[in-house]
């Protein structure tokens, strides 16, 4: 460890000249209008603060810990391993990263038994079989005078022809290391905890070398390392060796201010006072002993529902300055926050009213 730390290297995003502080001032409309230059893209990952700002312009609010981990993952070209309860925005971060760096999002959803054929590549077997049969028919048609030696050579050529690019079906992992791609994509490996150990060990190889060997074609290597995001809901422990290759971050439920900001951006129609009260209620609800705590996604859903109800309400009070959030409305909309019958039963009524009073 005596060597000095490496200086800034070519980042995962298309390299440009080193840039000073980021200019997070661009509005979303502006962003849509034109494609950013490589230097601009690089500036978005110039510091944790710049990255946080770039994410925020697209509606994704991060705290400084996640900003730092994501920043380092980009700069050190390491996969980002996100763990946390459902609904805290693990998957969303990947797609917002793709937006920030104006690149493709390639998503692989994991499940038990996920294998190479579904994750990396597969040959198009029906077409291969048809090609074989067509070949055979050709042989039979012109085969009366065909010499045995010619047959053998033909068969060998056909065998090679069977495993050519046209018959290759590219699944997410192969797409992600596609050498032809202009720019590094974001590869989202979603819910890795659902895959089994066999797949994990394959992934370990891929994330080490960023190359895939297809026996019939040779080794394909990524020209740009993809920005890799792995998520886990922790339905089982992912093997340490895999985590070792990644930068790990546990996404907690957001603090009050962060969650308020998220809701403000997602549901701007709500009155501020009402929004504060709702976020406070959800935050308070998370301290209760429940089977499944509401995630940020649930808060946003609920806020949308309440916004609709508030809009229905008194005409003089269009955005609901607080009147929309009475215990009866909370009870009626509790299903947007809680997803287990036991939990709803527990909270509905007295407890909901009490929590609501506390979050006033």
């Amino acid at each position: 460890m005596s060597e000095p730390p490496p200086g800034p290297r070519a980042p995962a995003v298309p390299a440009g000249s080193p840039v000073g502080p980021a200019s997070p001032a661009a509005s979303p409309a502006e962003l849509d209008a034109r494609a950013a230059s490589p230097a601009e893209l690089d500036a978005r990952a110039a510091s944790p603060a710049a990255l946080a700002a770039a994410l925020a312009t697209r509606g994704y609010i991060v705290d400084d810990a996640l900003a730092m981990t994501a920043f380092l993952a980009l700069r050190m070209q390491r996969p980002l391993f996100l763990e946390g309860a459902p609904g805290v925005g693990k998957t969303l971060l990947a797609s917002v990263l793709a937006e920030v760096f104006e690149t493709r999002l390639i998503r692989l959803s994991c499940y038990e038994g996920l294998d190479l054929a579904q994750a990396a590549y597969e040959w198009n077997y029906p077409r291969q079989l048809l090609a074989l049969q067509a070949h055979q028919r050709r042989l039979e048609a012109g085969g009366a005078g065909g010499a045995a030696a010619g047959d053998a050579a033909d068969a060998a050529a056909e065998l090679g022809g069977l495993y050519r690019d046209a018959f290759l079906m590219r699944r997410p992992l192969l797409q992600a290391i596609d050498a032809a791609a202009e720019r590094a994509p974001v590869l989202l490996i979603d819910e890795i905890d659902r895959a089994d150990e066999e797949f994990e060990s394959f992934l370990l190889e891929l994330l080490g070398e960023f190359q895939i060997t297809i026996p019939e074609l040779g080794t394909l290597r990524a020209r740009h390392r993809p920005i890799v995001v792995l998520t886990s809901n922790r339905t089982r422990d992912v093997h340490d060796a895999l985590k070792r290759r990644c930068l790990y971050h546990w996404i907690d439920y957001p603090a009050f201010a962060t969650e308020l900001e998220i809701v403000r951006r997602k549901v701007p129609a709500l009155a501020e006072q009402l929004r504060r009260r709702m976020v406070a209620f959800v935050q308070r609800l998370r301290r209760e002993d429940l089977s499944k705590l509401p995630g940020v996604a649930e808060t946003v859903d609920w806020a949308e529902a309440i916004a609709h109800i508030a809009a229905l309400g008194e005409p003089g009070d269009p955005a609901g300055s607080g009147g929309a959030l009475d215990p009866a409305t909370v009870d009626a909309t509790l299903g947007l926050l809680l997803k287990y019958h036991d939990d709803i039963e527990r909270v509905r009524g007295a407890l909901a009213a009490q929590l609501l009073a506390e979050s006033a």
Partner: protein
Amino acid sequence: MTGHADHGLDHGLGHGLGHGAGADPDPGREVVGFARALRDAGLSIGIAETEAFAQAVGWIDPLVRREVYLAARATLVRRREDLAVFDELFAKFFGGPSPDRGQAAPLAPRHDPHRVFRTALVSYMAERAETSAREVDVPEHEKAASGHELLQRKDFADCTAAELEAIARAMRELRLDLTLRRSRRLIRARRGDRLDLPRIVRDAARRGGAVLALARRRPKLRRRPLVVLADISGSMELYARILLQFLHGVTQRHARTETFVFGTRLTRITGQLQIRRVDAALAHAAREIVDFAGGTRIGECLHAFDRQHARRVLGRGAVVLIISDGWDTGDPARLAAAMRRLARRAHRIVWLNPLLGRPGYAPEVRGMVAALPHIDDFLPVHDLRSLQELAARLARIPRRKGAVDVGRSGGRSVARSVVPAPSGLAAVHARAVGWHRGEP
């Protein structure tokens, strides 16, 4: 968004690090030192992590404490559980207050872990430590056939230390083959219900395009995960030691085992039981357990299990083994609710009750009564023989969830008439009695 501006006056890494490459002759010293401190505290940190941290420091402002903290955390921590230890050590190593991690973790233990109470297990360990010098090992030849046969049925509670040693040895021989389930991964097979197209094409290409045989695949079989929840409260003290030894053996041989113990609170001891040496493993386990040896709050503990671990360990058709006498000082309604949720997630729940081995025992304790409707198998676990029976039974868990087990170990099978799955006290009690009736 980032809060490091507030921490601008704090000092991060002492001198030189990242402050222009090569400014300090040994810039990595603090990085390495901190990594070592973490390793000493039990975090698994290797050279790769240390290098990653050193590399990360090159990307941040090493004089801002908050940035150093966040970079260290991003590169050195891989488990949420390690965060608390990490924070504490970071504060110790770099000075200053423990860094604020925002909200307190919702899973923080409710009890103060520093207050060590007398526990059944700890008292056992202490007792064992005192007597170990005088302990006489039972020579192999004394384990004569008749003696061995006698040990098979002797209640653990009545055994002498020497006899327990002999039982422990016999237990080491005990194999526990958990039943298999079909996974969703496919493997090649001579007979299977799915076609292996890659192989068919390959074979056809080799034969000039003719498909002569259909290669097939079938689901791969996997062992079911085993989750053990063992009661180590005062009333179970007599059995705790021997059962922990049994659990140690199970964990050693069966890779997918998660073990928890409970009294008034739940403790995960899987990691401790993975240590190979029995005594060391049990000592480690005992260290982990901080508990009263008085009441048992089974409902609370199962509830905690449901909240904190069930998601992670109860997937993939897990079999749950609960070892308890059912003496619950908590609310029976809470226990029933926890059992109901457990039953929904687990493939099968086996409840082992040492008292069930005593003649005339009826599960009338209210905790037991509350739990019974949700149990698939209610079995005794008081002697070596019952453990062997258990091993045999776990190898034959029905594939269908909630199915009534019709077979019996020992070659004989007592066919139970196909009635609706028994529920409630009467039915299970009938099963328990049936168990004894079958006993020779």
